[in-house]
């Protein structure tokens, strides 16, 4: 029997990915909506809260977040150019930055009195 499934449908995969991103927008959109509502209602409290944040850790995390996206984008380009080994290294770097991000987040939360 000839195997039709070997013909990969990249167009279809793109549909799937876009649909997934759409659901993500709605997911995080809900959160941003909640955030905006409360920020609008309590501007002073949000301002006071922001002054208690740790500037150094926050900045490092922002850099990590952006860099890990860069690694991932570069990994895709590497695959497209046929350099699988480089792509694996870049993807590993993405994962590592993600883990460091979470460690820093944990530290941030534990030194604040966020969790009651």
């Amino acid at each position, binding site marked *: *029997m000839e*195997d*039709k*499934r070997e013909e990969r*449908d990249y*167009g*279809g995969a793109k*549909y*799937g990915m876009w*649909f*997934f991103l*759409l*659901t*993500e927008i*709605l*997911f*995080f*959109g*809900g*959160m941003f909506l*909640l955030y905006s*509502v*409360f920020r609008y*209602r*309590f501007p002073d*409290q949000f301002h006071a809260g922001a002054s208690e944040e740790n500037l150094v850790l926050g900045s490092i995390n922002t850099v990590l977040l952006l860099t890990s996206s860069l690694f991932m984008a570069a990994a895709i380009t590497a695959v497209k150019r046929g350099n699988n080994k480089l792509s694996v290294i870049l993807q590993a770097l993405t994962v590592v930055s993600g883990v460091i991000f979470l460690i820093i987040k944990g530290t941030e939360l534990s030194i604040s009195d*966020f*969790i*009651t």
Partner: protein
Amino acid sequence: MEDGNMDLQSSFYHDGGGRRGILGWLLSFFSVGVMMGLLIRLNLLSPGRFMGAQRYNELFTIHGIIMIFLFIIPGLPVAFGNFFLPIMIGARDVAFPRLNRLSWWIYLTGATIVAFAIFLHGTPPDTGWTFYAPYSIRVKANIALAVLGVFVLGFSSILTGLNFVTTIHRMRAPGMTWFKMPLFAWTLYATGWVQMLATPVLAITLVFIILGRIAGIGFFDPTKGGDPILYEHLFWTYSHPAVYIMILPAMGVISEIIPVFARKRIYGYHAVVFSALGIAIVGYFVWGHHMFVSGMSNTARVIFSFITFLVAIPTGVKIFNWLGTLYKGSIVADSPMLYALSFLFLFSIGGLTGLIQGALAPNLQLHGTYWIVGHFHYVMFGGGGFAIFAGLHYWFPKMFGKMYSERLAKLGWFLLFIGFNVLYFPMFILGYEGMPRRYFDYPPRFHTGNVISTVGSWILAVGLIIMFGNLIRSLFRGEKAPSDPWGGRTLEWTVPSPPPSENFGEIPVIGDGE
């Protein structure tokens, strides 16, 4: 399948065991939900004799969670859609078979988490399936776990919707144009969009219930400046469209069955298609009618009430089309058709009572009463549930390759139909007279109605036992099913029963005729 290595590639749903097993799982969850429903009714026969108030609250909560999130929402798309959507559009499988398998495992994980919430140390959830804040944030029950379970189930639903929409866009056989697609495929398409657009909103809302409990984030907690009404808005932004996730595929099944058993083509195919899309779109903007008495401006109330009436139009169009199909048809009253006709009757009652409570003045009287319980059981069980049973009897021979006893199927249907009405119709009267829902006890004047309703639940249970017993018996003793026992004209009836792996030897080419 000859070459085993392909299994890993894609094929949980190819080998029939997997895709039939899903049906077994869903019906098992349904049975558990039914038993809880029977216990709820048993308490109302004589409040306090069989259980305490706390246990009663837990029962109706878990009954709701199981029936909605574990049975009706995944019911038609997952159990029947996975099996028949690819066949109906002439494809070997869905667009993302591995994602499909993943979504099934996510579903089972969600179900397991819900089970933990029920049986783990502590109190089972007792908030009602809606998890209304701030009660759900403060109460000492296993809410966080139950909510996490529902959150996980939501992602399974999103992935299923995404997969079906992509499948319909990309996998149709040559010649299978959009407007040649069977109506079940069309309704799954509309449902897929609703799943993608609505479920994420529920997911994020539930995350903030969990964060409210664990991290003290007060978005929905008035003592911290939060807003419980905002929770209701976000919850119903998902949960009203979820009603259409439950009912659209049901309408699809009915649109398949009625033409086959009336021996006619569907009357107004395009109208049925566009009304399905219309319901999916308009259904997104009616959520406020769940909250008319929660605190909402009069302008908002009038708008939501108006849009609620609008959604009745495409639904009415469908009812008209089904009746038009029956008109002068050569009607064969086999069991799938009996279930489909019951759907028409019960769903019409459900829909029309929905309009009564969707109008502002009656809503003040009816909100939070047994009227509402009657209404949504007529819609979800009389509509969604009966359509699942219709589909079950229609496609059972195709899925399992066995015929069931028609005589027993009819007997089961008859008891189920009678039991259903005896069980739920008194609720309209009780509610209209003012009996509140979710209450453990009631004043003596509501006793008669409750006794009738509970007796109805027993008749219904006997009907269900006969129905399931008949189907299970036929798995072992049933005659072999031919490829087309009903005279169906969609593609699934062109392949053997049960269908081979990969559905078709040769991908069919659809001509101009059907």
